[in-house]
């Protein structure tokens, strides 16, 4: 590695860029969830429980998403059922 490469790579060689990438992902994820009503996680758990009475699904099968538009909010429920074959 030449001298120029040494200087160019210095900022990538440390761990700071990993920290930045991880932060950008988690912060944007948490911002998206922010401001929603506090009952969303409980709602999701209870829905999961009901669905599981009838079909075997895993933790990620129920997704609850709150979208905000100008003057109304929509609550989107997405339940993924398993393949019949499996």
């Amino acid at each position, binding site marked *: 590695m030449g001298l120029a490469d040494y200087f160019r790579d*210095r900022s990538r060689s*440390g761990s*700071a*860029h990993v*920290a*930045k990438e991880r932060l*950008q992902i988690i912060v944007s994820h948490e911002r998206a969830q922010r401001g929603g009503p506090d009952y969303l996680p409980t709602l999701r758990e209870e829905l999961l429980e009901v669905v599981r009475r009838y079909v075997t699904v895993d933790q990620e099968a129920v997704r609850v998403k709150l979208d905000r538009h100008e003057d109304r909010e929509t609550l989107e429920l997405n339940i993924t059922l398993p393949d019949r074959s499996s």
Partner: protein
Amino acid sequence: MSKIVVVTSGKGGVGKTTTAAAIAAGLAREGQRTVVVDFDVGLRNLDLVLGCERRVVYDFVNVIQGDARLHQALIKDKRVDGLAILPASQTRDKDALTDEGVAQILDALREEFDYVICDSPAGIERGAHLASYHADEAIVVANPEVSSVRDSDRVLGLLASRTRRAELNEEPVKEHLLLSRYDPVRVEKGEMLSVDDVQEILAVDLLGVIPESQAVLNASNAGMPVILDEDSDAGQAYADVVTRFLGGERPHRFLAVERKGIFGRMFGG
């Protein structure tokens, strides 16, 4: 117009109390009547950092409960004119600070001071909520480190939604970022998040950067706000912060590695 300013962070140990003490002393030195209020009930420490721990007779909770008048609890700083401190209580009762009590005392302090600086406890529980609730402006202290930056973002979210201004639909709390314990050598090596990285993630106005400095420990050992150590890098950085906070302009300093001359390198300076 008096202002209530909260110094907050979410994460503990990032420099909230050091910052609250330094900025309060700096504002008073600029001729602003300033009081700094310790909200960390049960873990009082602002008195130690300001060197007045032996002068505490009454505290915040005594005043709320009517056992003392506000003026009996306020301690006047002996070094800086116009600076007072209201110490936290050491009670273990977490509910000792009531909503109405805090509101009343802050209103009374507004009457007499230009700036009321609220030193928030760590976390996002009751004490931290009360310290932020009445704020007009917020100074969010962060270190260039993943957990601190994430917690700062969380705190910024709470400032935008759970404060008096947010609830009354008033103009939002004015947010400032103060990055402390900054080490330009490690930033240059790519081992530490840079001030640009942190600003890009948090997207808040940068009030200042305080370098990692031995002066901070020296000052707290002596019970002196570090801003009074005018020869130190941290003291000067805080002085710049106060100037900017009051609307003045100062370039950001201590961001780059100091290049030693050939003699410095030879003799290891």
